[in-house]
Every structure is written in structure tokens, then in C-alpha cells.
């Protein structure tokens, strides 16, 4: 650098040198490191969507999205009454209208009927940076307005949080009515993640238990007592076609698909006491995984399909164990407390979510498998059956309120909680679908 320049360029270089030397001297410029935050909900406004068809819109897309985002607990939603203007296109948005209210993001859009169904145009605007984050269109078949709204919620959620949204997913659960009476009935139901569009997959006079999803979301497995004793069934959602998989002597319980969908882990007690088995769905071959005089039950798979975690009382009280399906190496995972059961491993493989008893009260808790720390997520007392949303942000579980079984949702960090609008009867055994 020094030797390369010609004489003519020297002055400017020299000046530059002086400037470089002085510049930093003249400026003490602050450098600050911030290591904490408040994690308050981010203010977001979802403007009512404009309807560009004739007559009145079937339903306001904006309202469905607003409820979706509000449920996530990450956002403080602005009520439409409080909005100073109701733009439906980014060009119509006046930044000041939103900035004065401290709103950080505005989602707006419109829907119009097309020949093939519905088309939504929607945009997300960053108010403080005055920047359009996206401006897109999405189509849906007729009558799928809610699905369209959930897709838009997913899109906005992912943009704002960095995590895929799980608003377009579904829930399975069992509703029991008139329990302990002559008219006792059980229904296996499926609904959207927000509780809407509930439909009955199976109705029975006998108990239905342990429903869970195939990884592609097309099939469910469950235990039904319809023949008077427990048997495991497979049912295609779209066609309703059912198949009985096992009805051995004794217990047939807790079926769960492996992550690749080719196997089922389940519990059988044909050998005398409950043990974990693996059923190959292609060959229909059954393989015994655990062989212990204690009770082994409630299996589930690790995300990589390499291991099954289950509850066993082999150490005295119920605790969570993990067994490698090939090597059958076994490892105890939980040590805090004298009752830990019904575990599910989060997709990151680091956290376990399970039912944890403390002072005689059953809570949903997580355990960091690296550090061993247990965090209790729920405050209610009879919490059971946690099932994790496919984006890993929330878990749904069954609990009791005013003597009735209801479903509730808690975020994996315990910060956000909500209850699902309770229907009639006793609701129990929820299972959150994979991404659909």
C-alpha cells in the first residue's frame, strides 16, 4: 500500500491517514451489550379483511387470524374498534395511524371468490421500520375459509417468531358423556387446532383411549373396548376404514406410530405383566422390546426413531426410561420426584415433557435432559396426557375444571396458557396432529 502509489495521489492518501487517525480519537462512540429483555407480547393489529365478492362475506378472515395469533400468547392484538383506519392493501396503510398506538406489525388483506374457491391477498407490514415483510396471495377450495385463515396465521407467525406456525393442525380427543350411567357414550373426535370444525371419528358405548396420529396425519390409532375388551384399531380419517391390529389376552394399550410411520410401539400384557412391544405394520410381526416383571407402559418414540421412551415402575415408583430399539440399551431419564409418567420427547431431543407429581399434585413438567432441571409448567392439579404441537411451541393436556375434564394448552416454556372452549361432556386424551 505505501509503496504502490504515485506522487500525485500522495496528498489525498496522507489526508486520509490523518483523518483515520483523528476520526476515532474524536469519537468515543458507545458500545452497549444488552443481555435481558421483557418478552412482553408484541403489539400486532390484524385488520378485518375486505370482502371483494357480492353480498356478505361468509366469515371475517381477520378475526380468525386474530384469534390464532392471540392464542399463541406472543402477541397483544388490537381490537378492530380501536383501529384508526382499516386498510386492506399495503398502499392504503398510513404508518402514523399505527405508530401512534405503538403497534409494531399490521397484517391486512382481502378475500375474493374465484371460480375454484377463494383467493386471499394479504400483507404483513413492519410499522416501526416502515417495511413490507410480505405481500402474497393464497388460494383455497370453496368452504375452506377457516383453513385459509389458519394458513395466513402460520405465515405471519413464522415471519414474526422464527418458528413455523401450527395453526393449520388438528386435535384428536375423546369426549365421554353421561359417565357411569346407562347412557354412557364415548366419542373420538377430531377438530381444528382452535377447536372449530369438530367431527366424530368413532362413537361407542365402551371406552375409547390413547388416540394418536400417524406421521402423515392421514391415519389414527386408538384403543377401543367396543368388543368388551381392549383392542387396538387403525382408522383412515378420510375413508373411515378401520382395521383391528391387536386384541391379545389382557392389556392392549398405548399405540404410537414410529416417526417413519412403519411401526407401532404398544403395550401388551399377554406375557403376564405389561411390556413394550413393537409392531411392524408391513410384516405384522410383533417384537417384544422390554421384558421385566415391573409394569412398562406409555411408550413414545424419540424424533430419530432410534429409541422408545416409556414409563416403568421397575425402580419402585413410576419413572421415565429410554430404550434403544436395536441395542436395547436402557437408561433411566427422570430422577426428580417419586412420580414421573407419560413422557413425550420434544423434537430437539433435549427436553422431555411428562406428568410429574409434586406434593400429591399432578403437573405437566419438562426436564432438560442435558442439565437435568425440571420445570413445572401447569398449576392445576390433575393434569395428564401432554401432547406436543408439531412446531414444538405448545403442549395440549387434559385437566379438570369444576369437576369436568377439559383440554388446556401450555407453551413449552410455561409462559403462555389457555383453555380450549369446552364442549359438553368430559374431554380427555388429547393428541396434537403433525403438520398437515
Amino acid at each position, binding site marked *: 500500500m505505501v509503496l504502490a502509489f504515485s506522487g500525485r495521489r500522495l496528498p489525498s492518501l496522507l489526508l486520509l491517514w490523518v483523518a483515520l487517525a483523528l476520526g476515532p480519537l474524536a*469519537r468515543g462512540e458507545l458500545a452497549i451489550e444488552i443481555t435481558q429483555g421483557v418478552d412482553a407480547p408484541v403489539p400486532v393489529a390484524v385488520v378485518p379483511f375486505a370482502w371483494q365478492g357480492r353480498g356478505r362475506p361468509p366469515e371475517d378472515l381477520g378475526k380468525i387470524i386474530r384469534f390464532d395469533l392471540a392464542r399463541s400468547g406472543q402477541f397483544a392484538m388490537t381490537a378492530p374498534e380501536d383501529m384508526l383506519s382499516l386498510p386492506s392493501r399495503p398502499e392504503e396503510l398510513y404508518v402514523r395511524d399505527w405508530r401512534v398506538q405503538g403497534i409494531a406489525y399490521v397484517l391486512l388483506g382481502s378475500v375474493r371468490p374465484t371460480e375454484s374457491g377463494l383467493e386471499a391477498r394479504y400483507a404483513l407490514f413492519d410499522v416501526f421500520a416502515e417495511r413490507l415483510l410480505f405481500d402474497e396471495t393464497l388460494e383455497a377450495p370453496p368452504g375452506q375459509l377457516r383453513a385459509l385463515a389458519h394458513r395466513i396465521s402460520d405465515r405471519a407467525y413464522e415471519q414474526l417468531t422464527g418458528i413455523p406456525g401450527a395453526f393449520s393442525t388438528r386435535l384428536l380427543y375423546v369426549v365421554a358423556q353421561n359417565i357411569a350411567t346407562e347412557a354412557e357414550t364415548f366419542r373420538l373426535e377430531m377438530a381444528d387446532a382452535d377447536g372449530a370444525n369438530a367431527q366424530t371419528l368413532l362413537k361407542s358405548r365402551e371406552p375409547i383411549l390413547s388416540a394418536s396420529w400417524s406421521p402423515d396425519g392421514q391415519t389414527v390409532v386408538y384403543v377401543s373396548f367396543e368388543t368388551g375388551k381392549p383392542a387396538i384399531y387403525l382408522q383412515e380419517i378420510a375413508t373411515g376404514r378401520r382395521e383391528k391390529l391387536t386384541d391379545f389376552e389382557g392389556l392392549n394399550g398405548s399405540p404410537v406410530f414410529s416417526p417413519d410411520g412403519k411401526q407401532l410401539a404398544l403395550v401388551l400384557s399377554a406375557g403376564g405383566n405389561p411390556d413394550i412391544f413393537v409392531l411392524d405394520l408391513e410384516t405384522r410381526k410383533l417384537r417384544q422390546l422390554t421384558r421385566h416383571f415391573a409394569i412398562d407402559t406409555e411408550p413414545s418414540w424419540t424424533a430419530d426413531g432410534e429409541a422408545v421412551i416409556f414409563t416403568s415402575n421397575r425402580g419402585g415408583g413410576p419413572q421415565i426410561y429410554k430404550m434403544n430399539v436395536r441395542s436395547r440399551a436402557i437408561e433411566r431419564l427422570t430422577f426428580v420426584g417419586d412420580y414421573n409418567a407419560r413422557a413425550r420427547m420434544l423434537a430437539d431431543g433435549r427436553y422431555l415433557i411428562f406428568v410429574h407429581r409434586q406434593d400429591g399434585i399432578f403437573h405437566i413438567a419438562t426436564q432438560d435432559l442435558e442439565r437435568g432441571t425440571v420445570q413445572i409448567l401447569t398449576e392445576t392439579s390433575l393434569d395428564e396426557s401432554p401432547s406436543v404441537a408439531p412446531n414444538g411451541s405448545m403442549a395440549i393436556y387434559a385437566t379438570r375444571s369444576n369437576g369436568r375434564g377439559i383440554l388446556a394448552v401450555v407453551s413449552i416454556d410455561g409462559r403462555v396458557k389457555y383453555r380450549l372452549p369446552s364442549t359438553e361432556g368430559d374431554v380427555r386424551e388429547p393428541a396434537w396432529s403433525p403438520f398437515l
Partner: protein
Amino acid sequence: MAGLRAYLWPLAWALLFHVVALGLFSANWSSPPALRQNSTAEPMMAELLTLVAPAPKPAPKPKAKPRPAPKTKATPKTQKKAAPAPLAEAPAPARPEKAAPERNAPPAAPEPEKPSLQEVLGTDFEDALAAEASSDGSDRPEAVGSYEADLMARIVSQWSRPPSARNGMSCDLRLALVPTGELVSVTLVRSSGNAAFDRSAELAVRRAAPFQVPEDPAVFDAYFRSVTVTFSPNDLRY
């Protein structure tokens, strides 16, 4: 080559300037290089770590000028102490700025540098050293710390991290402020790799603005016209 001789004087000035600069650096070297404050009064207050941003700039210049170096060696006693200077450069910057005339406070264009350079050279070197020593290690006006803390508290109170944020993520934003405390621009100078995280930091800054800044234009220019903020959460669960 003949043209080079014409620039002998400017070169000499420049060398002299370096000597002074090195002297200042070394004079300051013995003092604690950075402030580390912890507010116990406010639990929300994050750890305040003042890394001095301009340090990287002066660093390359001794290396980049191999030729002047030998001549510099011949000059004053401070030279020996200057050896470890790269580490010590940090706290130095503000002092000479104050030594320089107040009227030249905004050091923008290269033009005004020349007079100020002469004036720097004109000031009594020993006096400068003495002033340096008496300033008790901190060469910043006392008020800077409280404005800095206020700026940080405002940002902290507005920073809502997305659920995808993890301990260990880190991004740098450069804030450009005007003397009324308003935010002119926020620039992402180093991304965390997570767009949602970066945006949460940017949003925190924009929501926290305007800021309280010192009224003294010289102090404002020195410390608050451009502020670099690092966002690196350490209180998250993951």
C-alpha cells in the same frame, strides 16, 4: 521520486502526530480499559459492558505504515510504553478530543483536521498527561454513564424476544441519533442468523426511541451520535 520531496513536510507532521497519539495511548494505558457497571437498583437492567468501538480503527495504522515506524522510534520516552498500546487504545479517544478546541467538535470532514492537528501538537504534552492521570481512569464525562444506562434501560424494557431466540444468539445494531435524542436510523451491522431475533432487537430500539441524550453538543457527538448495541440474551431458558 522528486515529487515525494514536496510532501516531506506533511509527512513530518503526520509522523509527529503519530508520536503524540502513541504518547496519549500509552499514557492512558495504565488505567482500567473499560467500564463495567452493574445496576443493582433496577433488576431489569442488563449488564452494561462498554467495549470501545473505535479501537479497531487506530489499530491497523501502525502496521499499515511500515516506513514511518523506524523514525518514530527515535522519538520521546513514551515510546517504550507504547508497545502494548493496541490493548490500551480503547479509552484514549475522548481525551484528545477534549484537548482539541471545542469549536471543532463535530469532526466530520477531513478539512478541519489540519488546524486541530496543529493545535493538538501545540498543547503542552506534559499537561495533557497530567490531566489524563487526574481523570481517575475514566476519560468520559460522568454524565455519559447515566445517559448510557438510561438508553439501555429503555431498550431492555422494549425488547421482546421471539420464541426462537436462544441464549448465545447475538446481533449488533448501530443507532444513529440526533441531538434531540431522536433515532435517525438503525443498521444491522451483525446478524444473529435468525431474522426474527434481529427484528426483535430492531423493534426494541425503534420502540425505545427517542432517547435522553446529553445536551452538551461535544459530549453528544463524542458518545451518542452513533451507538453500537449488542443484543445477546443470557436469561433465556434455552
